[in-house]
């Protein structure tokens, strides 16, 4: 096995083009587990730790561009006010040690349906920046996941950043597991209100072959929410939203939970996160 140790993105892309089977390693929280357990023996590791620009974030075209290797712990402490949904999801990842190493770029690379950041990325219309020696392309999160642990990356491509629009309204993230720390989600849900467009974003995790949005639920809420005169929400509206979110999922029975439990839990999380975000929206609307 070779250890490829580029110092820049350009160098990394050249290496990835010449050794397409090289496995990128950032925080190692997925890749090293596979190596430690002999589940994978790639011809080479492509270390991304030395590339400074992958560890920074900035504002580009009105969106926060988060370098692929920025660890969750920094998203939690430094981006919570701008990207509350993603920060909340990041806060639930693993443990302090894992959040110090793991990154959204790595979550996207692994593309597990249970990855904690995916629902928040979907709900907030995040866009993945993918680079190769052929150029850079931008892929919306909703088009990025193509199967269980599969994404749209070509063998010569690397994820260099994710671009997330700053929140314009309340956002929430919710996850079901057996304890707070070190949990692979049984299922997860994210919601983002976009009041300026009177639109709602959603993201479902761990309840289908890929993370996905609940389109029908989003359209229902966009049309039914009393955006202009924010009153409390009718129970019937909350319930219908929960049903539509559950309907969008296609969960399976596995060691972490049954399909019917996942559907049930998704409906509960959808109702709760809607009521939390709507309460926050009403408070800010009253203050305005």
């Amino acid at each position: 096995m070779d250890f490829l140790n580029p110092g820049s993105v350009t160098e990394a892309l050249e290496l990835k083009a010449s050794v397409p089977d090289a496995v990128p390693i950032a925080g190692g929280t997925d890749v090293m587990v596979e190596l430690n357990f002999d589940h994978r023996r790639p011809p080479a590791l492509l270390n991304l730790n030395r590339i400074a620009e992958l560890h920074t974030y900035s504002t580009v075209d009105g969106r926060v561009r988060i370098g692929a290797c920025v660890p969750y712990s920094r998203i939690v402490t430094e981006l919570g006010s701008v990207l509350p949904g993603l920060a909340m999801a990041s806060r639930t990842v693993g443990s302090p040690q894992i959040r110090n190493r793991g990154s959204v770029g790595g979550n996207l690379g692994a593309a597990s349906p249970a990855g904690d950041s995916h629902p928040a990325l979907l709900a907030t219309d995040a866009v993945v920046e993918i680079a190769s020696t052929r150029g850079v392309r931008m892929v919306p999160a909703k088009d990025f996941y193509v199967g269980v642990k599969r994404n749209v990356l070509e063998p010569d491509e690397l994820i260099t950043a994710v671009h997330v629009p700053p929140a314009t309204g309340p956002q929430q993230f919710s996850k079901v597991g057996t304890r707070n720390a070190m949990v692979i989600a049984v299922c997860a849900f994210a919601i983002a209100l976009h009041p300026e467009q009177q639109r709602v974003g959603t993201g479902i995790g761990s309840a289908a072959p890929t993370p996905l949005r609940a389109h029908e639920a989003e359209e229902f809420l966009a049309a039914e929410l009393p955006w202009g005169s924010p009153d409390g929400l009718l129970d019937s509206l909350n319930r219908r939203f929960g049903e539509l979110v559950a309907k969008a999922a296609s969960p399976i029975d596995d060691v972490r939970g049954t399909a019917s439990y996942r559907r049930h839990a998704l409906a509960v999380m959808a109702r709760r996160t809607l009521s939390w975000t709507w309460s926050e929206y009403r408070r800010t609307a009253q203050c305005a």
Partner: protein
Amino acid sequence: MRVNVTVNGVERQADDVWPGESLLYVLRERLGLPGAKNACEQGECGSCTVYLDDVPVCSCLVAAGQAEGREVRTVEGLADGEQLHPVQQAFVDRGAVQCGFCTPGLIVAAHDLIERTAEPTDAEIREALAGNLCRCTGYEKILDAVRQAAAKKAGVA
């Protein structure tokens, strides 16, 4: 391959390192530092916790080559000679050690907490130690020890 890494303030060199092996393996098997423990090898248990450039990480999840040129601080590097660090002394005083296997990782995690947080609440202590498992389940004594170490650092004990 060769890996150069500063461990507990000393520049060290490990040779014949297989690129897929972990920093934990290098520390234990090549550099003679068995303090960090090898248990789950998947980041679940925290018993291999060390500082990598002052950030606590699971050393089982760091590829050896990723530590090249960087600074590692292990549990062996916390005491001042024979003088235990207050976190270590607190674990002794409070009987926070049973079989001892999880202890080095917990000490590093607790050390990081009290370095960063002057007077941690119980919730903050639990959160800071959430990535460290004690299968003897001696958590109450461990919490006592961290409270004692934090109080000592704050000058109220």
